[in-house]
């Protein structure tokens, strides 16, 4: 039970982190028709910028400045590179962001080195947020913060006690993601700026005729999307590890999220993020293989099959390919994505 709860929460927090990234990607895609290949690179830039600020003045200013740096970088890139290739069509737009991902990766390696940097979360977030103590004697108990040491050690050998802590950084990740989502939703649906953005999405000519600078709106949206990725980077970088390969690690997964959710659908991206986050977290934690599963239901595979990789591979080993398998299955059975509206 406590395994299930903790895994679910871990999966949810990872899914929310994925959504922080894929929401920006989806927003940019639905407004500009551009798939930002460098989106995960902004995630990395945010993490590294926040790391540098954290070295100088502390984590909390970094939490603000990191996303800002990524956002400004994104806006500048839109203004001076992306806008220039817009007239060539969608493929060159995708290519220019592809080139940017190379340049950003190497710039980061140039400035911060090729190995991981030591980006720690602040003191407050280092411990567990709460601990579930499951004792065979007293049942389940919930403690905020770390559980007292004495509780986790069984008094005598007959009593089984399991303490499952939930890291505070994971909780913070969920909190930031939810606050950000709420702010984004309020911004888009309740403010004047959001109104302009929404209308620029469907009727750009009309919005322009009414005197709004649509290219500047697009630049702001691109910058905002990059800033969201940067924010996710600060959280993700301090929770997991800040290294040059962090962009590649999430890059392909967020593309899967966007396709599985349905291109351009924000709600679909949300659903797919949580789905993939939970799927991967549970898969990593489960140590069953096809062979053991068959043995469980009483089927004995043949001698030749028993030793093969197919029977030996555990679910935790195949966890990295699960998102891509999901992508293939979705494409075969529901090509427009979970909540997508258009095919093509």
């Amino acid at each position, binding site marked *: 039970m406590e395994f299930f709860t903790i895994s679910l929460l871990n999966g949810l927090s990872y899914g929310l982190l994925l959504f922080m990234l894929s929401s920006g990607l989806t927003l940019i895609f639905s407004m500009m*028709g551009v798939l930002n290949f460098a989106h995960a690179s902004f995630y990395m830039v945010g993490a590294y910028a926040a790391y540098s600020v954290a070295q100088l003045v502390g984590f909390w200013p970094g939490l603000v400045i990191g996303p800002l740096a990524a956002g400004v970088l994104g806006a500048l890139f839109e203004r001076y590179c992306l806008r220039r290739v817009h007239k060539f069509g969608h493929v*060159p737009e995708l*290519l*220019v962001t592809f080139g940017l991902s190379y340049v950003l990766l190497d710039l980061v390696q140039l*400035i911060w080195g090729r190995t991981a940097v030591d980006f720690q979360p602040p003191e407050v977030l280092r411990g567990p947020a709460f601990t579930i103590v499951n004792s065979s004697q007293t049942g389940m108990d919930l403690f905020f913060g770390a559980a007292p040491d004495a509780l986790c050690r069984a008094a005598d050998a007959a009593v089984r006690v399991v303490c499952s802590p939930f890291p505070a950084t994971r909780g913070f990740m969920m909190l930031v993601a939810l606050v950000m989502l709420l702010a984004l939703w309020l911004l888009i649906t309740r403010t004047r700026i959001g109104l302009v953005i929404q209308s620029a999405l469907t009727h750009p000519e009309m919005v322009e005729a009414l005197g709004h600078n649509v290219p500047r709106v697009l630049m702001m949206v691109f910058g905002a999307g990059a800033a969201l990725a940067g924010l996710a980077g600060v959280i993700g970088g301090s929770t997991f590890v800040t290294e040059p390969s962090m962009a590649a690690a999430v890059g392909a997964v967020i593309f*899967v999220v966007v*396709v599985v959710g349905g291109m351009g659908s924000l709600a679909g991206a949300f659903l797919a993020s949580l789905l993939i986050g939970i799927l991967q977290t549970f898969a990593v934690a489960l140590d069953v293989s096809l062979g053991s599963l068959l043995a469980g239901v009483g089927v004995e595979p043949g001698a030749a099959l028993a030793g093969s*990789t197919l029977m030996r591979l555990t679910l935790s080993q195949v966890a990295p*390919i699960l998102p891509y398998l999901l992508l293939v299955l979705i494409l075969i059975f529901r090509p427009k994505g979970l909540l997508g509206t258009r095919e093509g």
Partner: protein
Amino acid sequence: MGRTHESRPHYHFKPWNVGRWVLWGLFALVLLAAPKVFSANFQVSLLSQMGIAIVACLSYNVLLGQGGMLSFGHAVYTGLGAFVAIHALVAVGAGSLPVPVSLIPLVGGVAGAGFAVVLGFVTTKKAGTPFAMITLGIGELVFAMSLMVPEFFGGEGGVSANRVTGEPVLGITYGPQIQVYYLLALYTFVCTAAMFAFTRTPLGRVLNAVRDNPERVEFIGYSTQRVRYIAFIVSGFFAGIAGGMYALNFEIATAEVVGAANSGAYLLFTFLGGAIFFFGPIIGAVLLVLAGALLSEFTKAWLLYLGLVFLFMVMYAPGGIASLIMMNLRVAAFGKLRPLLASYLALFGTGVAVLVGAAALVELVYHLQLGDTIGTQFNFLGATLDVGRLDSWFGACFVLAVGLALFELTRRQFELQWGVTQEEIEREIKRREAAI
């Protein structure tokens, strides 16, 4: 209703396209003579790699240039082709597969086409941006699988084989690299010719139409999805041949050959060479091998330079190097190249200044970063730069700033001149048309 006869004269004169024969003859000659000119061991090895890269980049261009399909997972087909070919080579060595070693690349080709049949069915369901994302996902899928299934992919060490096996035919054992080079050169030539012929078939033409206006193609009655699918299989076949050539050349295949780095390199260099011309990817492939072998020796930050060149290419010359060549050929054909030469010289000089300044700065930052391991002093084009000294930094910045300013000045001048020349050419063309 009877058949309507076309009002075409019975006598149909079709001149030989002399230029084309000359070009292909030259291509064959270059392939033949290259190892005579560059005869050192590592040079022949580089030439062999170029042949492989040419087939791979051309097969990629069937998707990108001719079909408008941006694939991020082309290494899947070259890589799986290489793996199947290496397994075939192992089987030949063990005597269980009666296939001559010379035909191993074809085995790779069939494997590549087979995987394209299976995976392409999923990827070509979509076009445009979703297609790009799905190929990326499939690429990641295959790469992740390669680390999981050691039976086929050989785990960390990969699968290796020996190409010197069986009875020698006409004294050819494929022991010396030069024999392998000529085999690969033959494959390169035949594949290039076959892919060029493919662009001339009705299917190749419809593929171009699918790239340019899929909606109209659907209206005419073609299924764009099926056209993409068939083109994908053709591309997979040639990619597999490139993989088989790779297997024969290196006698080993590791998990990296299906990795994203290779897919990215095919995309980058095909585009750099020029995707809109048939011969563009050949230039790109030569650059691919040269950059991988020489540029990476020269500087650790070579991917940064590559990325920057790519960015500028997409922004300013989306037709790649091939389009730059063709544009200047057109200017030359109208006899207007000579006045531009001075501008080219100025552009080149200032461009070199910018490059030197930027490169010095990059190397300085790089040595500042890795000062502990590679030292803070280094030799840059004959000058000794030191990370700790201000004059090194100042010098690099100064060269960069002056170079940039001069380059911008000459660029503006050149742009004006270029525009005027192009207008003159347009007018000349109109005049000639009017004269007819």
